[in-house]
């Protein structure tokens, strides 16, 4: 019962963030535009050779997701900082982890929606057909995004309230994402060519391990991060 009430609070935050975003779409449109730009520019940097583009596609896709997604996290807290809604948020009864659960769910959904647009675009630009193992590719996308968004949600809670927040968030976040970037890129790259060496499995396990560790740790540290 009590747990259901707490989940209800997380649901309220998710609903509130998505409603606000649905109204303006300002965040979504700019992040998707940024993702498109990054995809295009990597294409220019890599050259028009179709074979080279195809082999670079997995890495480019993940970098695009990371670089464009990171723009969203600070904004998700900007909503709370305008009019000092955060103080009110912290004064509601209930557990603080629900705030994290709500923010995490909202950010996850947001980044998934960005990916829905970005991934087909990457497929077109980089000449990648729908792979035979598309189910596993989706699994990698899910696991990689969960790891990325979990840490992004924690670090943005700090960065958005500090000076120089635009610089601080990537500075804190990106070094932490090295395992996500490597594992997700390797797994995606392998799966796009039907995983001939059977490597994807161990990378997926690494991603899953990363996710479990950091989801648990983030729920633990977040109450200390968000207060005051």
């Amino acid at each position, binding site marked *: 019962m009590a747990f259901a009430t707490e989940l209800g609070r997380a*649901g309220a935050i998710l609903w509130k963030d998505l*409603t606000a975003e649905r109204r303006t779409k300002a965040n979504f449109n700019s992040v998707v535009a940024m993702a498109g730009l990054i995809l295009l520019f990597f294409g220019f940097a890599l050259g028009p050779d179709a074979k080279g583009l195809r082999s670079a596609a997995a890495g480019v896709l993940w970098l695009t997701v990371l670089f464009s997604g990171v723009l969203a996290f600070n904004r998700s807290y900007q909503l709370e900082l305008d*009019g000092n809604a955060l103080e009110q948020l912290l004064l509601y009864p209930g557990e603080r982890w629900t705030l994290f659960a709500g923010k995490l769910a909202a950010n996850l959904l947001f980044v998934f929606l960005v990916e829905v647009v970005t991934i087909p675009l990457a497929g077109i630009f980089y000449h990648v057909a729908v792979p035979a193992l598309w189910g596993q590719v989706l699994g990698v996308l899910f696991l990689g995004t969960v790891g990325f968004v979990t840490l992004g949600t924690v670090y943005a809670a700090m960065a958005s309230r500090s000076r120089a927040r635009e610089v601080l968030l990537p500075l804190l976040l990106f070094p932490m994402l090295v395992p996500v970037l490597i594992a997700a890129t390797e797994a995606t790259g392998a799966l796009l060519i039907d995983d001939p060496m059977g490597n994807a499995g161990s990378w997926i396990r690494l991603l899953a391990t990363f996710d479990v560790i950091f989801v648990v740790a983030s729920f633990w540290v977040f109450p200390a991060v968000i207060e005051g």
Partner: protein
Amino acid sequence: MRPANESSSAVALIGVAQRFGHRWAIRGVSLDVSAGEVVAIVGHNGSGKSTLLRIVATALRPTRGSAHVLGLDVTRDAARLRERVALLTHDVALYGDLTAEENLRFAARMLGQRPSRVQLEAVLDQVGLRAVADERARTFSSGMQRRLSIARIFLRTPDVLLLDEPFNSLDADGVALVSDLVRQTRARGATVLLVAHDLQRGAIAADRVVAMAEGRFVEDAAGATAPVLGEPVPESPDVLV
């Protein structure tokens, strides 16, 4: 002066000090408020009165001293206190892209309630915003935004009600709304602490007026005219501020 008895006092502060970086917003204050009392804290900007309220509301951990509300420690028992204490924050704390109804619905859900549209409209009606229930809070005047933030208080029946500058940008009707709220809260035996730099004449019947300056109390006018305000003689037994 009487010793702070934590169990019988609604609010008991002893030697509370609050520091922000190198600045001391509160430099050691002690306050004892009985249950059912209405206490007004007045003072200029930066005198520390809002900070004091935020400590009582568990929004800040006091740097020094002890603070108990309803017998509970504001630092240790903060989670339990939040169920029984409500703060009308200085900022309106609204989401501009949500409608009035949605802002209120969000607050209700954060309080663990599942209100129907009709219930929410009834509350909006109380603060005079029913007509604009489906308009975005961003389009509201500051007075309307203030009313909407007051509507959140109407969702609850707190044992301690904290009001930070409740009259800000309110018209005469709005001021009457707040004074009604205070009267009703007092009538059901709950405690009210309110903070204002400019108390509107006759708006609040306070049992006590406390003045703050530079992080300390400078006056404590219990049942008497508060000299700092230069207000006329009150009607017994309350202080009309």
